[in-house]
């Protein structure tokens, strides 16, 4: 009991240690798993995140020429699986924890990333090209030849590779 009393008196003398949060700043850890950030320029819309998400928060849908990557936070459990499994490193969890939302915002509380398809310069088909971070993971040395092949659609790439083989 005397120990408690000592702590209590010390608290009284030192003053409150309360975080002034709603009115002031607060401490946020660097590695806090908060809202997602999807880099649409790196993402290849492979669907790994959708497959791996335990709560089904991520949904990728094709609309015309654009893949829409939607994350609905009201069912997200902030486990970080999407970041861990993302082959390109397009998904990063930020430390933004402001998740409170009202009834009207419930189904609008999402992060949307639009991954647009590109046109193949040879045949004109639409496709999502492999991005540089993905290629960097697969090949130790990247030369201009690989970079040129990246721009072609899968069919044309096959043709180009065979042509190079038999020349």
């Amino acid at each position: 009991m005397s120990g408690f009393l000592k702590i209590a008196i010390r608290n009284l003398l030192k003053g409150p240690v309360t975080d002034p949060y709603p009115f002031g700043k607060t401490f946020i850890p660097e590695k806090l798993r908060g809202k997602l950030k999807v880099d649409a320029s790196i993402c290849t819309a492979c669907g790994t995140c959708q497959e791996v998400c335990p709560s089904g928060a991520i949904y990728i849908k094709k609309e015309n020429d654009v893949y829409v990557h939607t994350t609905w936070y009201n069912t997200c459990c902030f486990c970080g699986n999407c970041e861990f499994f993302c082959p390109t490193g397009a998904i990063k969890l930020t430390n933004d924890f402001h998740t409170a939302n009202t009834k009207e915002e419930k189904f609008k509380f999402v992060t949307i990333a639009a991954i647009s398809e590109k046109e193949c310069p040879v045949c004109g088909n639409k496709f999502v090209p492999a991005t540089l971070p993905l290629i960097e993971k697969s090949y130790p040395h990247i030369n201009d030849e690989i970079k040129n092949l990246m721009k072609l659609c899968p069919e044309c790439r096959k043709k180009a590779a065979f042509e190079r083989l038999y020349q």
Partner: protein
Amino acid sequence: MSIITRSPFLFRINTGSCNGCDVELATTAMIPRYDVERLGCRYTGSPKHADILLVTGPITARSKSYLVEVLDELPNPFVVVAVGTCPTSCGIFRDSYAIEGPLDKYVQVDVNVPGCPPRPQAIIDGVAKALEIWKQKIRNQK
């Protein structure tokens, strides 16, 4: 009359939560760092005193009847806050045979605070939003 919105009484009910969100709620109440009493809040032991109901957990089949009972016992006007992903949308427990959620089925949920568990600051944010909604409800009642 806006001064009375500075005295919200909180009541929390655990509807089969894993206790993670309950720990965060206890943190907001008791730990000196996130003191909700400075906003005028007070945790009560009875839903009949409460102005803001905090629900944690996906509504399990066993806890459903108790939740419905508590919702009936709240005096008007009241605000419902879903703390955590589970009551908001059932999260990872969705489509389970033992889950009767989400909370929207039983009552109009005014504020959702998703997170697994949400950060204490996010809960304080949610309570602050609930206070604004409560103010509007009092105005509408008159």
